[in-house]
């Protein structure tokens, strides 16, 4: 991969400056669609490009936009910059280093959705970044790229940033909307989906930062160019955030369909200290853990292939785990995380994660009874498929698959069998 689409600051210096961004074709896409294309045409282009949501679910972006309830206004666009998944740190790099391409993406989305107000919902820890975005938005207004009746058309657009208050669940789109409305961040019942009834009950598009940042080049360079990158069903590039036991942690923008092996061993420098790779968390905490078998390592990282080996791509935060690491410990951390972040709205997630956390406490103390490993598994199974939002399933799947795939690591903690108990 020679050229970046999203992480373009790695190719073009100072692209975070407006004049540099403009010199490099910035806002050409936005201006051209406002002047020459109907919103429907833009939606059509995005559908044809095959772009899929980078926030985790991989839902086709253009299709989502086409679900907006017709004839209901005002509408809203919300950029999901809550980036809270453990191991995910791509949106931050994009917004810090290539902010104008992201903002142009938001503008394109707003035009396609015919929304005249767009919000950028940032996680609380991004407060300095949010202040910087505010300044960039101000520059765009001064430059006539945001505001009333843009480019002589009837389309007006305002953008606002909004800081969250430190809850992982506010990355879930309906909890995000609740939070944006000033309420407690808890997911809403779906349907209705945001495209039908979103912010303040109005049709709303919620897209991830990376998804939106793809838009300017898709418009500017065309669908055919874009579709050449990636696979047939997972087009384009993906920014993979690599962390864990890895030589060169960081973000890597590669075509979808790149294998785990290529990412880990060619780009990210492999495992340090000569250790062997043991497992991979392909989507941070929010997907089943994969044993690093040859089959898994040779799996393509796209939205279809990862599920075939028993996990999912999610937001593609690849956490690499080597042979020295105890998987029970990893999962106890993940369970702590989910127990802490469960919003508490629904019973199985609220009480199930609390229960699992307490079983894990005994496991990590090496005081667990043998049957408690099975109990842990049963509790996880009981949560699955019963929750109001996906967090509960994430929490349960992480644990059940780990028990199934790495049972010996757990058994070592049973009272009497552990090394400590000797």
């Amino acid at each position, binding site marked *: 991969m020679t050229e970046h689409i999203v992480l373009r600051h790695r190719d073009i210096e100072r692209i975070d400056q407006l004049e540099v961004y403009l010199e490099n074709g910035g806002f050409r896409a936005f201006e051209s669609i406002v002047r020459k294309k109907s919103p429907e045409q833009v939606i059509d282009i995005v559908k044809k490009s095959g772009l899929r949501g980078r926030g985790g679910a991989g839902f086709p972006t253009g299709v989502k936009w086409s679900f907006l309830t017709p004839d209901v206004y005002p509408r809203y666009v919300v950029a999901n910059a809550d980036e809270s998944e453990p191991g995910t740190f791509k949106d931050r790099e994009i917004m810090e280093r290539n902010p104008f391409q992201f903002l142009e993406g938001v503008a394109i989305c707003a035009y396609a959705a015919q929304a005249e107000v767009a919000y950028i919902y940032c996680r609380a820890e991004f407060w300095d970044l949010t202040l910087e975005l505010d300044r960039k938005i101000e520059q765009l207004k001064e430059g006539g790229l945001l505001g009333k009746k843009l480019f002589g058309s009837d389309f007006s657009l305002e953008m606002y940033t909004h800081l969250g208050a430190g*809850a992982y*669940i506010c990355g879930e789109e309906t909890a995000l909307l609740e939070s944006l409305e000033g309420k*407690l*961040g*808890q997911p809403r*019942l779906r349907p209705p989906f945001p495209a039908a009834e979103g912010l303040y009950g109005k049709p709303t598009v919620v897209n991830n930062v990376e998804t939106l940042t793809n838009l300017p080049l898709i418009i500017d360079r065309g669908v055919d160019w874009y579709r050449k990158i990636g696979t047939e069903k997972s087009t384009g590039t993906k920014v993979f955030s690599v962390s864990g036991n890895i030589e060169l942690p960081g973000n890597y923008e590669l075509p979808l369909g790149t294998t785990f092996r290529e990412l880990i061993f060619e780009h990210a420098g492999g495992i340090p200290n000569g250790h062997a790779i043991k497992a991979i968390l392909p989507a941070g905490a929010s997907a089943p853990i994969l044993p690093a078998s040859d089959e898994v390592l040779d799996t393509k990282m796209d939205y279809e292939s990862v599920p075939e080996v028993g996990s999912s791509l999610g937001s593609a935060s690849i956490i690499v785990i080597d042979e020295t690491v105890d998987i029970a410990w990893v999962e106890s951390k993940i369970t702590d995380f989910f*127990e*802490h*972040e*469960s*919003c*508490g*709205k*629904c*019973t*199985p997630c*609220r*009480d*199930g*994660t*609390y*229960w699992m956390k*307490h079983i894990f406490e005994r496991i990590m103390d090496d005081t667990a009874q043998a049957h408690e490993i099975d*109990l842990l598994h049963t509790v996880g199974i*009981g*949560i699955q*498929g*019963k*929750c*109001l939002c996906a967090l509960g399933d994430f929490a349960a799947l992480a644990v059940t698959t780990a028990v199934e795939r790495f049972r010996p690591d757990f058994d070592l903690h049973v009272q009497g069998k552990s090394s400590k108990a000797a």
Partner: protein
Amino acid sequence: MSVTLTIDGTEVTVPEGTLLVDAAKRRGTDVPVFCYHPKMKPVGMCRVCLVEIGRPARDRATGESLLDESGDPLIQFGPNLETACTITVGQGWQVRVSSEKAIQGRKEIVEYLLTSHPLDCPICDKGGECPLQDLTMGHGSGESRFLFDDKIRLAKRYPLGELIFLDRERCIQCARCTRFQDEIVGDPVIGFYERGRRLEIVTYSDPGFDSYFSGNTTDICPVGALTTADFRFGARPWELNSAASICPHCPVGCNLTLSTRREASNAGRDVVKRVMPRQNEQVNEIWICDKGRFVHHYARSPERLTSPRVRKNGKLVKASWNEALTRAAEGLKGAASSAVGIASGRLMNEDLFNLKELMAALGGRAILVDSMAGGNLIQRYGVGVGSNLGSLGKRDAVLVIAADLHEEAPIWWLRLKQAAERGTTLIVANARATRLDDYAKHRVRYGPGEAVQAALGLLHLNGGDPELARFEGDRALKSAARAIKRARNVTIFFGQEGLNYAGTEALARACALITESKGRVGKSNNGLVAVWPRANTQGAWDMGLRPEPAGLHRALAGAVAAYIVAADPVGDDPAAAAPFEKLSTLIVQDLFLTATAELADVVLPAQAFVERAGTFTSGERRVQRLYPAVGALAGSLPDWKIVANLAHRLEVDLEDKAAPLVFERIAAAVPDYLGLSYDDLAAVEPQWPEVGGADLYFGGTAYANKQGLGVQLAPRGAGRPLKWKAPPRASAGKDLLLTPVTVLYDRGSALRHSRLLEGRIAPLQLILHPDEIERLGLSEAGEVEISWDGRSERLKFAASTDVPPGSALVPRGAGLALSDPTPVTVRRSNS
């Protein structure tokens, strides 16, 4: 459109859009629920209502149904269980509520809930009527897989306010309480704080949980997390007996169930332990306000009268019934046609009927103290049979004028708010902003005391007398008038705020004429409703009592004896004592030794509503029965019986044996009540949503109505033509028009003797507009002196921008002896 599906193998047909959980309920299948409540929007939080849903499979390309080998539609079941409370039914579905998989799923949910539940059922108020307890019995496993030591420990006694207590361990985070406050009553004063298992209910208001409807949350809380201050640890549900009653505090006539228990504290006799709503979907649904729920304690006040008293040597001393009645009879006999009976709408129809008959036999008068007109017009123009605020829809309109329903009749307020949210056109006309304004499509403002002018303006624009053109008001009034014209049905609620008797008389006429202009008098959801000051003021009119338009002092002029029943005119206005002191005989019949009773020659102890059988006629003219819940306080008698006993001594024949027999006489003599019987009033029919069944989790602990829905009386119709009246002249000149405004928690004897709500009683203070405060040069704190008619009074004051220019407000019944709006001079009080 209806939809047919099968639930556990039985076919059911329900209207399109019905929630699956309701469809099952209608078929008699209980799908367990915790967060779902049939009066609120589904939220799908607790996840206990899991069922299996099979949907007819369709060919993706053609959209046609696929068939199985035998030619029946192929049914496909999804991999996951689904929540029956969030899904509306579909044609041809097969739903499994009792399958192994569905039961297993619910079992798991119950087990999760129990991990963090204290299971202190043996000391929990909900124990015995607790959905969680019942479901645990039905679905739970016998043994806990969760280690007891891992249980979360939280506050067990957290006061959300002084009325409602929260047990944080017991809360299952179903949000029924917060959604009730937000969605149903529009007082979002409680909410969730934190997240996960740490999620907890907190209050945002000061005082805590500040809402007139707070008690209802304890009924719908599916566990024992919310309890009321007075019933908390008061009794176990299975020890309780119940009696049907009607709330005696306002004209809504909420149906109640009084839960009683025999107690040592009461010498082994019954005590009312709690007041609960009893379902009447046409009156109060399954709600009551906190006044109705908490004020009943006055009936057990140690200050109740337990024996008659007579004046001897200038002192009131205890006497036997015989002595007291004889003395009273002598006084009345001597006065004959110079005797006057004075009563209030606190009494039941049976009492009022007997009183009226007695006074008629003596040739004297029976006067109603409540100074508001219109009862006779309600008999002609009242709402039609079948009127139900819960059935109002988009084509209907409601006008509320000169009343603050949130304070005067909370459940009407609640139901009109909900009607407005369903699309009913709500018009609120008042000199000031009231809480119903938030839901009104049209807000009409008039000058202080000028409700009649506004009503005449509305009448004019609805085809009334051309002479009325001078009342044509501003834009808001005109568009409200158009809304009345457009609506199919129009109900008008009128009150007495800012008006004297003559004013309410003119207002009632104008409102009657507006309903007449629609040509639908007598049809359901059309007609007049008076926002009376008492629960049974309408009944009093129906029994033939009338206020004295010129005021009580006029009624007393020339009187020799007075018989005051359930009224305290001297307590209301100490300056009005003089005419009572001049009487040769003053007889007072009450629960307490009131200020008027202290002046009396004879005092007769009456019974409280919890001890009594009888009937009330509500503002919507529904005649409803009360049943005795507890034995009478020794020494007291029901009012109708005291009156009858007195009558016997005067050789007047009145029914003295039983309330139903008095009612028989009413049914033979009072026009609109002809032929009615207690049996008619006790008739019931099935209501939706079903409450109080075996599955308390569906509706909450409100009681099912097995004792009677009452009978709504038909209005007689227009009859002879009615003429509008010009508004009485009232000019405050340079003075401010001091307007008493009704507050729910006033200083009335019921509230004073109940204790529980003491902290919420409206303080006596003058409420002034900030501009007025500035004009008068008042400092921030301190007092003002008001004077009128040669009297003066010092009061605290408070500021509110809702006070209309040229006026000042004072809570009615808070201690200032003013019942009519009165021009007063306000000045800074020195010192």
